[in-house]
């Protein structure tokens, strides 16, 4: 199925979990936060949260700013 990650459409496995997705992206254990369709997904729910086709995923982190 296709989902959107940080604005880019990407092919992923059906019903992939957020934890699996982050592992594929080599982001496991990094300090980040995640939204799906503009709703926050807490870290504690990464393992159980399954993605659906056309989900819009935002993976964010802290950067320098004023």
């Amino acid at each position: 199925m296709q989902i959107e990650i940080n604005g880019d459409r990407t092919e992923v496995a059906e019903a992939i979990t957020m934890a699996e997705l982050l592992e594929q992206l080599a982001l496991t254990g990094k300090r980040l936060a995640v939204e799906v369709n503009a709703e926050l997904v807490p870290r504690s729910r990464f393992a159980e949260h399954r993605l659906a086709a056309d989900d819009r995923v935002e993976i964010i982190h802290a950067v320098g700013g004023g």
Partner: protein
Amino acid sequence: MTTATQNSDRLVIAGKEYNSRLLVGTGKYQDMDETARAIDASGAEIVTVAVRRTNLGQNADEPNILDVLPPERYTILPNTAGCFDVDTAVRTCRLARELLDGHKLVKLEVLGDQQTLFPDVIATLKAAEILVADGFDVMVYTNDDPIVARELEAIGCCAVMPLAAPIGSGLGIRNPLNIRTIVENAKVPVLVDAGVGTASDAAVAMELGCDGVLMNTAIAAAKDPLLMASAMRKGIEAGREAYLAGRMPAKRFASASSPIEGLFF
């Protein structure tokens, strides 16, 4: 400052005490190393960060700002820079809270215009209401408007942060009388946020009675950011001490400093 004054004169934000009244941003530096060294030189204990998309694939291993500014040492103040509406500002704060393990302190800014980056005060008021109700400690960027500042305090913001001048402009305090009025009305800390250009601007803000100053470009865009960070630290301290000391009244005409009595001619 004497040790006694230092110990008693602390900035309190959302129940936490700070020795430094200088808050700094972490943007526009050449690299992470310069960022860390400039912030160290500034003496700041509260540092702002922005929240942006993570790099995927390439550059995945580049250092993170929170590696060089560890939350164990600094109070991290995530901002909503770049947000032009209520929804994105609120979402950004919720992401930041998750990113920082439930840390509730945020800097709310909802911008109204690309050219001026002036705040959209209507959207700012709405976002502040939502965030305060959601349990955030909101430090809010706003105009130098005493009425809006009063409303933001009434909503429950933990600090009100009027601009000195447009973000990144370095124009200094354009409306000192309004800043003074905001300070006099407020029961929460008032910090000048944005528009400071050099150390004397920071000192003026503190002499007006502000509780602190938040700046970024004035340090990062100086020819020597580390030296300017040190200058700003001293400007803030000098202005604070002058405010506490109570300045002499300004007079139109001269008043001799040497005695008239004992003149021999």
